């Protein structure tokens, strides 16, 4: 009974649950938007990276190595305290920009490795049947790319969600920040933080579940 009381005090009492839900919403927003823009930008980046135009190719390569080679928190602080310091821009927007940039670099690389794993023979087979370059891309490259890239993309998504937990550094009250605040307020760090972890775990498994669900079963 004592334990349930404690849980009630930490997670429910005085609209505590609402605060946590708000934090969760912020985390979800940042993650979802960053994923969307990051994937779009990442595809473009990959297109440049494997393309035949040297300046764009090199630019993409440099961008990818810098972003992938440095902590995302550094990038976040650089943008928040440096680049956008005097603009009075919404911190949430800075976070979305940061994580979009970060995700883009990873998505570009995972797409590139998927492209390399692709069987060129099938594209050639499509071309010799009479499909145009674009049709062959749609018919063969894209569906197979998706199939190869999916498992890696899935962990990129989960990683992204977990990485957003650092946005507290730039005054954003996300799930982690809320949990931290709650822990200080209730003086129950053990239970509170473990509760927060469970929420992150739940989100991750939700993502896995969604991917699993989209994986169409193939007939034997």
């Amino acid at each position, binding site marked *: 009974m004592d334990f349930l009381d404690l849980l009630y005090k930490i997670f429910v009492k005085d609209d505590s649950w609402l605060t946590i839900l708000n934090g969760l919403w912020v985390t979800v927003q940042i993650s979802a938007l960053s994923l969307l823009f990051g994937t779009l930008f990442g595809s473009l980046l990959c297109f440049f990276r494997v393309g035949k135009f040297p300046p764009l190719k090199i630019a993409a390569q440099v961008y990818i190595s810098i972003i992938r080679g440095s902590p995302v928190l550094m990038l976040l602080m650089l943008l928040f305290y440096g680049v956008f310091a005097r603009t009075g821009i919404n911190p949430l927007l800075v976070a979305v920009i940061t994580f979009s940039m970060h995700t883009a670099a990873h998505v570009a690389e995972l797409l590139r490795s998927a492209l390399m794993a692709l069987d060129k*023979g099938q594209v050639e*087979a*499509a071309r*010799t*049947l*009479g499909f*145009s370059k674009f049709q062959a891309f749609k*018919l063969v490259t894209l569906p197979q790319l998706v199939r190869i890239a999916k498992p890696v993309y899935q962990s990129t998504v989960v990683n992204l969600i977990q990485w957003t937990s650092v946005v507290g550094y730039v005054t954003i009250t996300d799930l982690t920040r809320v949990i931290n605040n709650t822990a200080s307020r209730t003086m129950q760090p053990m239970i509170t933080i473990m509760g927060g972890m469970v929420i992150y775990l739940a989100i991750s498994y939700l993502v896995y579940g969604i991917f699993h669900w989209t994986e169409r079963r193939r007939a034997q």
Partner: protein
Amino acid sequence: MSVIEVSGLKKSFGAFEVLRGIDLTVEEGERIAIIGGSGCGKSVFLRCLELLEKPNAGKIFIDGQEITAQGVDIDKIRRSMGMVWQKFNLFTHMNVMENLTVAPIKLLGMTKDDAREKAMALLAQVGLTAKADAYPEFLSGGQQQRIAICRSLMMNPKVILFDEPTSALDPTMVGEVLAVIRMLAKQNLTMIIVTHEMNFAREVATRILFFADGEIYEQGTPAEIFDAPKRNKTVAFIHKLKYFNYEISERHFDLMEMQGGIQTFAEKYGLSARRTNRIQLSCEELIYEMFDNACADEIKIEIDVTYSEVDNSVEVEFTCAGKSYNPLEKDFDELDEEHLGATILKSLAQNYSHEYDGGTNRIKFTLA
């Protein structure tokens, strides 16, 4: 009008010239087999016909249309040509029926039902109706290749190009694929087949092209090429000739190196120890015979051993600069201590011949 016309086709990769000027005209109903060693440009030639490789020079006409011309709609011309690949290249994310019907539906505007009906008819011909809904990864190589042939037939091509259709297959599956190609041959479909299956080429083709050095080195009917090849490289290829060559330029040559070389050569092609020994012995005796009797101060001896895998025969050709000397010319009634080497040679060599021309002895013989 000829189905395919190629003139002066050249293709290089970097500095490496793969095709050095190919001229070829293929008439409707012809079945052409292209044979040749690896790296002779046969596959590149097929890829050029499909414009998968851009030729450096020359013109290609498919059914009267020049595909090497500027601004040609290659996608449309490709519809009239089928290609069957060494690695099948079925679309792995589609099942068999989708593999067969996707192109005719999207490119020829065939209705789904018509396409399915046609696909089933073709599958029936190759005995694979049961696999219509299977995915390629669950099919054997032979089955995949039969499906791949059906896929190209779905487009009603004027000509089908086969790029080593059985090279990636288990020996047990070669037969089923060849059977399907044979069936197509009976329907008088025009085709070009790059193949290593010589018996198959002989039986199915109406014309054989032997590729070497990036050109059509020799061509003719199967009988002409397989029974009476005219040029050196064709003969060597058809009879699967293997060569060993050794040159000697001083009296104190490295005998062990030569013997080792012959040993390695013989082991590589599975010659018996007895035959290996005979080659080594006859070469050694011949060399010392010539040292003693024909050679002056300057030594110039060359030994060529040729082994034919098809006839299982070994031929030795021996040239030596110097005086005219034929070691087997003498009377061998009595065993002669002086010419023990020649005696040994006489007992080993068959079909022996000696010529002397322009200061060079040329000795040829075969070994059992």
